[in-house]
């Protein structure tokens, strides 16, 4: 994305200083007639169509050849019957059917409702985890002993399997009398804080020597150095961390729902459809599809925020 939307570097753009000096009012960005954005959107659509064709093509071949490569007798890695690989049309059709016999709402609107519950938990978790990450990074910037003492524990916290941690958090949440979604949010935050901490710390330390010496030459105090130089320098790094944290918080919320007895959320829905897989495999595929699309939308919303925050930088 960046390679096609950024302008050439200033060095290349201003081969002749004379030209630059005489055209002060030149527009900030020049776009070609067919924007790179349109090309990207078309490309994305083509990729999605190809993936769909691959799914259906593989299934058609398997059905025609009885899941064996003719002549060699090798078996297909994945069976192609309707139980293993429902038709795309069946998956999309399932979305328009009622979610259950007891309920007349369509599967699609049911999934959207549950997904919005999950995304809300993920968003709260992302905000809480990111705030913690930002604070930790700033503390670590100024305190070497704290950084060296705590960092191994933070790394350890992320290597312990989530399935072990999640029930603990749910139980602690339950004991303290908080509603179940609080524990789910806690699990999302638990996964989100780490990439934000690491990337923000890296970013806070990213100012070049000339920037730091200039800041010293104008007698910035520590607070000014942080707010006028280090934090602005860190922003691109912070957003890289936030993107990772956003995906992690969605995973955390979904896994959290499985452990918590919330009865709500897309994680819960996926678990239910997995349990009744043989009754309707296309429902599980539909749920996974909706969860995946929702995750993409969630992360892209963050990307929008990033583009807004970094709009004046030549890398943005």
């Amino acid at each position, binding site marked *: 994305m960046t390679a096609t939307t950024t302008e050439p570097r200033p060095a290349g753009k201003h081969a002749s200083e004379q030209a630059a000096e005489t055209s002060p009012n030149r527009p900030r960005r020049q776009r070609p007639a067919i924007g790179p954005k349109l090309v990207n959107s078309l490309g994305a659509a083509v990729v999605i169509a190809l993936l769909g064709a691959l799914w259906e093509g593989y299934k058609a071949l398997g059905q025609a050849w009885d899941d064996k490569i003719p002549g060699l007798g090798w078996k297909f890695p994945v069976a192609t019957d309707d139980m293993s690989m429902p038709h795309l049309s069946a998956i999309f059709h399932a979305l328009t059917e009622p979610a259950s016999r007891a309920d007349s709402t369509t599967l699609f609107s049911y999934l959207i409702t549950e997904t919005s519950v999950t995304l809300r938990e993920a968003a709260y978790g992302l905000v809480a985890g990111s705030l913690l990450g930002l604070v930790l990074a700033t503390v670590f910037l100024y305190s070497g002993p704290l950084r060296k003492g705590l960092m191994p524990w933070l790394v350890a916290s992320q290597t312990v399997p989530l399935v072990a941690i999640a029930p603990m958090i749910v139980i602690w949440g339950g004991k303290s009398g908080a509603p179940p979604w609080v524990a789910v949010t806690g699990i999302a935050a638990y996964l989100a804080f780490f990439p934000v901490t690491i990337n923000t710390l890296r970013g806070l330390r990213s100012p070049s020597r*000339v920037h730091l*010496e200039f800041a010293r*030459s104008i007698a910035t105090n520590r607070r000014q150095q942080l707010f006028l130089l280090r934090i602005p320098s860190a922003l691109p790094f912070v957003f890289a961390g936030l993107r990772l944290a956003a995906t992690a918080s969605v995973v955390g919320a979904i896994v959290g729902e499985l452990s918590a007895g919330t009865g709500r959320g897309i994680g819960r829905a996926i678990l239910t459809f997995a349990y009744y897989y043989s009754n309707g495999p296309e429902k599980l595929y539909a749920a996974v599809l909706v969860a995946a699309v929702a995750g993409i939308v969630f992360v892209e919303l963050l990307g929008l925020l990033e583009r807004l925050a970094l709009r004046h930088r030549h890398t943005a």
Partner: protein
Amino acid sequence: MTTTEISAPIIAVDGVSKRFNAGTDKEVTALENIDLAIRPGEFISLLGPSGCGKSTLLRCLADLAEPTGGTVTLNGKTPRAARQDRDYGMVFQQAGLFDWRSVRRNVELPLQVAGVDRATRREKAEEMLELVRLSEFARHYPWQLSGGMQQRVAIARALSADPSILFMDEPLGALDEMNRERLQGELLRIWSDTQTTVVFVTHSISEAVFLSSRIVVMSARPGRIAASIDVDLPYPRTAKTRTLPEFFDKVTEVRQALYGAPSDQAV
């Protein structure tokens, strides 16, 4: 500007030494026993080969490095106090502008740090941009400017808090020859407009001769002052100055101070 003029030095360097890795087997003496007095309004160039300690000396003046011996006084204060009082502005070889701030907001930065109110610092920044003739680029961002223009913004930024001293560490070193000569002319105009004292580090002999009222020639290993040469070419100096026989005589004089008497040997 003549050397016989008697005024108290604005910058006084007394017996300054700087050793790196002192006490280890990697000890390097960057500066040894430097004495230097700079009077208000002078344009001083510190000239010498790479590794002669000219940048280290400038950094000691600016409180970006600490001498291991001797004392430095700026405006009668320690370098630290002078830095805290923003008595000097500094320009580096790289412009070092803040990418995320417009040109005007970059120039405002020293004033913002000093706690000057928004309206005043905006007015001052616009005045400074006029000084370096970049008013129409106030709303641009640094990456939209060429290297030479960025360096002019850096000069405006260094001067925005009205310092009495301007330190410049090879500020034109990254520019091509044409831009370099044009900026030298600009710099002399800015110097005469603002009446600041300039200490300018360079390794270009012709640059030092064209700009300076006095050239401090340094030699390497250990860094010492080899000569102090007054350049009595009259100001304002112009493109024509570069063609005068007196200019070439001065270049030759400085070159001899650097390398010794000319011979047929390759330098």
